[in-house]
């Protein structure tokens, strides 16, 4: 059960420009903004057509990022206060998106995961989302017992925010749920916990 190095863990190859798309929808949080800026610096000329950015201002310096994003040649930057509100806005943007739209996601695994999940729910190809990881490695974890999600997990063991179980955070990842799996770590001997350390920085 408790095996390391699991293959379902997603890979994030980095953002590249899709020169065939006529609408680019880019979702990002925190330091993901820098990935967008880098994308424009390196591949700016290849990005043709409309660009819509949905940005979650999750860091103290996020307002500066927003200013810089607005200086890019884009149609609009939607700046939202949290990942949840950004995803909500992204849903609206994608609902009216047409053929030829390419989705990009940059930032934390949570932001990327929720964007990929949304694309899938809207009937788009989740594998076609271009992704780049930036910033914290903190994880979104689903408790396999009560099915509740615990956000921003930095430690190998975390108390489920819903049922309170001590969860071991596995590498097993579900794109559909946009979450890593958490399994009760002391089910065999209640209270017997390994040392709790910060592993997802």
């Amino acid at each position: 059960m408790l095996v390391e190095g699991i293959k379902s863990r997603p890979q994030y190859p980095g953002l590249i420009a899709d020169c065939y798309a006529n609408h680019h929808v880019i979702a990002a949080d925190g330091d993901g903004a820098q990935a967008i800026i880098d994308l424009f610096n390196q591949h700016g000329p290849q990005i043709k057509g409309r660009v819509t950015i949905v940005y979650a201002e999750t860091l103290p310096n996020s307002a500066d990022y927003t200013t810089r994003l607005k200086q890019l040649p884009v149609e609009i930057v939607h700046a939202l206060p949290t990942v949840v509100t950004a995803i909500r806005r992204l849903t609206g943007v994608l609902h009216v998106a047409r053929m030829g739209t390419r989705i990009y996601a940059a930032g934390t695994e949570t932001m990327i995961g929720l964007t990929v999940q949304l694309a899938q729910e809207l009937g788009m190809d989740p594998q076609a989302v271009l992704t780049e990881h930036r910033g914290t490695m903190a994880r979104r974890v689903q408790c396999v017992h009560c099915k509740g999600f615990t956000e921003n997990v930095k430690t190998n063991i975390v108390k489920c925010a819903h049922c309170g179980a001590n969860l071991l955070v596995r590498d097993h990842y579900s794109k559909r749920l946009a979450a890593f799996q958490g399994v009760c770590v002391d089910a065999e001997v209640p209270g017997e916990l390994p040392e709790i350390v910060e592993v997802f920085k």
Partner: protein
Amino acid sequence: MNQEFKKETFRDDYTFSNSPESIRRFPFPFWEDKYMYSVNIEPHTKGPAGSVFEFPIDINEHYVSEMADRAIVLKEDPLRCQALPHMMLAQWDFLELLMTSMARDYPQWFSLKTEGDNWHWINRPLNIDQKFVFGDPSTLPYEPMEYIGRQCQGDFSIQDQRDGQLWMDAGIITTQADWSLDFDVGMNFMEWHGPVPLAHDMKVFDRALKFLLNLQLGQPVRRLNWTMTINPRLDTSPENYNKWGKDRTTVTPENVGDKVHLRVELQALWRLPRSNAILFSIRGYLIKMRELVTVPKWGRRMHRVLKSLPQELIDYKGITRYRDTTLEWLSQYDDGAPTSQGGGPD
């Protein structure tokens, strides 16, 4: 085969046990004195009369009680049965495969009459008599996969095939060896096998996937897989791990024979005709150590396999805590004599 169905439980008081005939036909999975993963796939062809391979779908003395246990699991956790919307055609394929096999091979228990799309299914052991229209889900009390899945031993998952991959897009899974359907639904072959140690690096999954993508209609295949379980518990899901996990600490030299079970999965794979999906059946068999050692070859071999099992597999299968106690107990049944090739009793 004219047998009674046993009335027994797989939880609480755990009254499950195997009859002597059921022990003799147990699909012992070790064909030599050691075990490692491999691409152990063979045609799912008819085996000797009375064996678990006699028919494609094996119904045995535990049928009625296993179905009662499944009903409890589904009542408590509906997420154990899930199908993504595009899997409806595959669900009907699955229902057809099960009903036709069961009615053909066990006419004393099941009957199926079809007139065009008007089907009449009778399941005598479970007291079910159902007329329905094939292809019309509203004529059944459950969706087709759940309907027939509640009437057949074994867990089932259905894989959609697209983009050169298999996707676990439906399943009815109530007796699993510690993996979650709810978590794995929508994953591909490599993703859901993610947690398995060593086998990825051995290219077992690359080769198995390549083989399965070419699986032909009418040529099902099978393989055996195994693990160990404390108490004859069918529902060893991760969802309920916080309930059954502590059982692993209850093994003592006195109770090994009754508590420790070998759990073998006879897994079969079929191409489905209309949907082109692949059906994966996981037919589980439990046997307690005390029953197992009544076949001397199995007692010897179980001891040797468990003794030489790679540490990664011991940990993955969750055997770590009770392995030594079990080995000590099994050693009484291993006199060092040579064993013959193959899994069958001598």
